[in-house]
């Protein structure tokens, strides 16, 4: 390997890292000291930090309620995703009449972004009577094509001899999935869980369209609502931001590998 000096690379990457982390630091600093909302010039180190903006954020906006709503919707989406995608992924590993058509259908559905479907999706959800409900919020997110193909890839890697042996033993197709395939597809399950959770947790547009009453709102909606109430005149808004970002950052740090793996194994929703 040709030797080249390492320190310019470190310098460049350090600069970029600082630029990428600067917004985080600034938000945390403001949420802790509340300066720089009206004062100028801003100071680098917070002068008299206190946690009272977090108390304000907790009480001004029903954070607990929104958090629970988000958790419920995301849980429904994650569980439904794992089950439905595993089933569909398994079905795609078998040959059957009409398989090319189904594959074509799935691949072309990947091309249809959610934003191109909002008006009819709203009307359909209304007809189903699911407006302003947890199921209405979760239903469009209960299956994603990227995750189906993640499962398919994982199931394709299971040796056929194992599956055939199970079939000879008389296991039904359903039990084959759960007893044979799934235990060997742990990373696919993990990827599925992480991606489905993050996508439904961060989803803003669909809850904005579907919720009517204030206490069915999810966390992103709550944050946007706080902004429209208080403008940016209080450190509580930034405390709320930090409270909203913290679970996302924590989850990402815990499940980095699975997340990156899931993203790089195919094109994504973005």
């Amino acid at each position, binding site marked *: 390997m040709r030797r080249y000096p*390492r320190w310019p690379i470190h310098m460049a990457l350090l600069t970029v890292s600082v630029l990428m982390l600067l*917004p985080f630091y600034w938000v945390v600093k403001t949420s802790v000291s509340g300066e*720089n909302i009206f004062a100028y010039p801003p100071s680098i180190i917070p002068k008299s930090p206190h946690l009272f903006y977090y108390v304000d954020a907790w009480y001004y906006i029903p954070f607990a309620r929104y958090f629970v709503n988000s958790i419920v919707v995301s849980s429904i989406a994650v569980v439904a995703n794992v089950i439905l995608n595993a089933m569909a992924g398994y079905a795609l590993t078998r040959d059957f009449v009409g398989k090319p058509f189904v594959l074509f259908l799935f691949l072309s559905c990947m091309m249809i972004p959610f934003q191109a*479907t909002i008006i*009819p999706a709203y009307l359909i959800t209304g007809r189903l009577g699911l407006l302003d409900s947890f199921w209405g919020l979760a239903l469009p997110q209960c299956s994603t094509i990227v995750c*189906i193909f993640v499962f398919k890839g994982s199931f394709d890697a299971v040796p056929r001899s194992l599956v055939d042996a199970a079939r000879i033993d008389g296991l039904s197709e359903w039990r084959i999935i759960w007893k044979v395939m799934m235990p060997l597809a742990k990373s696919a399950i993990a990827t599925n869980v992480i991606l489905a959770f993050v996508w439904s947790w961060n989803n*803003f547009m669909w809850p904005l369209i579907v919720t009517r009453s204030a206490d069915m709102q999810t966390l992103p909606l709550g944050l946007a609502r706080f902004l429209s109430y208080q403008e940016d005149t209080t450190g509580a808004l930034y405390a709320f931001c930090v409270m909203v970002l913290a679970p996302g950052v924590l989850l990402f740090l815990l499940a980095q590998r699975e997340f990156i793996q899931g993203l790089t194994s195919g094109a*994504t929703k973005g």
Partner: protein
Amino acid sequence: MRIRSALPIWCFLAPSLVIFLLYRVLPLAWNLVLSFQDWSPLKAARWVGLSQYEEMLFDDEVFWQALWNTVFFIASAPIAVLLALGLALLVNADIRGRNIYRTIIFISYPLMTVAVAIIWRWMFEERVGLINYVARSLDLVTQPIPFLNSFQWALPSVIAANTWQMLGFYMIILLTGLQNIPENLYEAAAIDGASARRRFWRITVPLLKPSLFLCFVVGMLNSFTSFDLVYVMTGGGPGRATELLVTYIYKLGFVQTRFDYAAAVTVFYFALLVAITWSANRLSGGNAGAVERD
């Protein structure tokens, strides 16, 4: 292929298929039908042919402004991809702590876009924002720039915030692509006397084509559908300076409740998406930018 065992397969496919038919395929068809009608939830539908489209193309300035803004947004995606390519090359180098750098640069991607929008909205603030502070400290400007309130700076500011969020994602894709290039290609070229620049342009770039294509497509799709960021950061304003097609569709449908006109704009929106993706595919040599084996 036993017919007996085909039924369970369809049963397995059925729930997912139902969801996609219901929430992807049916909406496309419904949009198309609705765009030729004059309908509101309170009255019956009436066929009006192309009049929604006529209104959209000839009478609606907001539509054209939104279209222009969307195209501008999309055209800025390649800049972010090129920046990410540079970052990927740096992170791919044989240095200690590259995983830490990778994590730090990527961490902005899985965050809630609403929160990112709020943070950047405040960083671009005219009186107390950080960007203005830095610009004034470095003597780049004498007066603070009202980024999110000026007609020229609003859209670039939103694009900057979007770039901050997407940079890590592009970098990860390109990094994976870089790491899939076999080392012996570089070694063979070095032995043959190729300089670093030639190695880059003759080996790295061609073999990265699929990853670059993927980044461009995802970037384009992301710019096309960037509702959260624009809605929270500027709401489409000032005036309509940051109005994208997607925010315009939302406002038409759910603020003005003109579902039929919104459907027409959505049909155009989707057709534009397909056209851009198809032409990107053609421009990159077909086959989704795959590398040709010779």
